[in-house]
């Protein structure tokens, strides 16, 4: 996997429903070619985590995920001894006459080692994709530990000795910028900013991920999402929200978006109560995007009332 070019990566990503632009494709190519970790920053819900999953799929390798959280310590990221099992083993073999050294070697063998994501990534046969998700949520102390790990790719377990990586994993770090990352970590990594997709990209993504979505609905969703992201919302909707919404509208058998449908399904998009007030204040901005025909008179459209009132529920079309 030494020379993959950006175009091939983008094509492979597109096959798997992930629309990557040129800059992002090149960044992935660089990360693979230079064997450096790639730090992806961007707003929530633009596919930072998803890109790592897709990359693992493209490279036909395992994805090992380390989800960071506040209070994550080195031990729960690296390894732990299985103490209950060790104790049980020690008790059971108390009388079998083996020497102290033998018993110790048994107790501190790989059988009793619980591998956590980082150790797992190092000991993997084929170079895996290691996803360090939301690294900004971990504390500074863990960040320092991670730095050492990314530089050395080796772990010393006092009872077993030093374990060196057979193959360097491809590392992807993601951050939502809830905290400033240290310069040292940034300098170890390649950096790429993943923004919200453009209108055309979003339509592409909708078609790639929600097969059977009508042209018109995709355009409406993408335009509305664009308009929403321009408002000063507390939680701007990401791509994940547009996909959810598209699925919701599909399952309600809508082939277009009008004011009433928007009202009914807005919960898929805006997740904070105050944001709905913001949207209400900017009704004029979204009005041109919505179609003025009501869902009932639209030929082929199914209103909520007809579905539930008369029980004529049908499978989603397309």
């Amino acid at each position, binding site marked *: 996997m030494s020379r993959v*070019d950006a175009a091939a990566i983008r094509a492979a990503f597109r096959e798997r429903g992930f629309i990557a*632009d*040129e800059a992002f494709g090149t960044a992935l190519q660089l990360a693979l*070619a230079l064997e450096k970790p790639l730090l992806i920053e961007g707003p929530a819900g633009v596919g930072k985590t998803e890109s790592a999953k897709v990359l693992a799929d493209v490279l036909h390798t395992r994805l090992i995920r380390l989800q960071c959280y506040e209070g994550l310590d080195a031990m729960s990221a690296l390894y732990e001894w299985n103490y209950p099992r060790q104790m049980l083993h020690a008790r059971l073999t108390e009388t079998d006459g083996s020497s102290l050294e033998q018993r110790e070697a048994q107790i501190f063998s790989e059988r009793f080692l619980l591998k956590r994501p980082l150790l797992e990534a190092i000991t993997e046969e084929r170079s895996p994709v290691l996803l360090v998700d939301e690294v900004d949520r971990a504390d500074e102390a863990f960040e320092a530990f991670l730095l050492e790990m990314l530089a050395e790719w080796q772990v010393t377990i006092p009872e077993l000795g030093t374990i060196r990586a057979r193959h360097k994993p491809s590392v992807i770090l993601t951050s939502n910028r809830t905290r400033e990352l240290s310069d040292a970590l940034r300098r170890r990594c390649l950096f*790429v900013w993943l923004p919200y997709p453009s209108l055309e990209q979003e339509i592409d993504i909708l078609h790639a991920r929600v097969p059977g979505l009508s042209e018109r609905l995709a355009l409406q969703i993408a335009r509305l999402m664009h308009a929403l992201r321009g408002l000063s919302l507390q939680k701007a909707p990401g791509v994940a929200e547009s996909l959810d919404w598209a699925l919701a509208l599909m399952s309600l058998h809508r082939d277009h978006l009008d004011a009433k449908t928007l009202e009914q399904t807005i919960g898929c998009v805006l997740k904070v109560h105050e944001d709905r007030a913001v949207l209400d204040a900017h009704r004029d901005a979204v009005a041109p995007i919505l179609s003025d025909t009501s869902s009932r008179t639209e030929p082929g459209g199914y209103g909520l009332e007809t579905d539930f009132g008369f029980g004529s529920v049908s499978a989603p079309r397309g």
Partner: protein
Amino acid sequence: MYPFRSLPENLIAFCAFLRDDHGFAIGPREAHDAARALEIADLADERAVRHVLRPVLSGTREDAACFDAAFSAFFFPGPSRVVQSELSARPRALNRADANEPAPDRMRASATAEGGIDESRLTVDGQLVPAPPSEVTDAARVSLARASYSPYDAEGEVGGPEIRRADPEWCDAARSLVRRLHVGLSRSWRPSTKGQRFDLRRTLRVSLQSGGEPLNIRWLRRPKRAPRFVVLVDGSRSMSGAASTALELAVAIAAATMRIEAFTFSTGLRRVTDEVQRAAAGDTVRINRLQHAWGGGTAIGECLRDFLRRFGDRLLGRQTLVVIASDGLDVGQPDVLRDAMREIRRRSAGVVWLNPLLETAGYEPTASGMLAARPYITTFAAVNDAAGLARLSRLVRIRM
């Protein structure tokens, strides 16, 4: 080729240009990586070269944002259609760089202080897309403009204040503030002699000494969360003396904890964390007068909103105490200030407002700015000396 013959020379010159003129953190390792990265790019394709160099050479979003402009300025310095070899001198600073500011970090500070980078308008290429026209930004611009024309505007070259290492009394008071501030328990477990959770790992380890019998029990406990501070100092003319005191307070806190961010604002917001931390380490630093950030009128609401937009996500949180030092004499819209204060309050552990006028006999906080901000202040006080800070440390209330 321009300005040197060979590719490595050009690359090194470009790295030096980014480092010196734009404050990128680029060392030999980055330059080496950039050279390796160029091997896989099609050098005839300018876009490909940009895409390849950007992830390697930039480290932050701000870097990525000015990368393309810097790339164009370095490799395509002249007007279009002028052959590079016919251009004589290498371009120095870009237009965004302030000619009065020699040090690169200042330049970047100025770029951000001017609001040069609007984060919501960046594309992945780091290019700025035009701002959507909206009434809000227009209103903001009008009130900012009004503030800068107002009679409170700075006159001529008013130098900023000089800050230096804080006195021991200040440091003691700041340490006590940091110590007393209880922003909850951390989520991580640390070994301790007494605690709530049994530490199997260490108990077993220490029991080796006693032949496997766990005689010494080890415990785990959650340590106190380290509080973070954001100090926003009003640098307007009406604050002149009090602002220096507030900066002294920021330096004292910086001496007690690393987790502090400091800003000055008047008609624009400026990050002075670096200066404050250098002062805490013993340097004498002059905070340069920059744009309208020192000695002008105040648009508190606009500045706080600017702070929220640019730094809110990264700096605010449940363990952040926001300290605002201002007299509340605002020339902006009270509504903007109210919204910004509500947001800051919602996203932080507490809001301390230090108003120097509070010590004045007969002062009532009735200025429109103060009235708008008042409901969202958790601690309203004045700090004029170290004793005042010590008093404050007993006063601060944290919302849990």
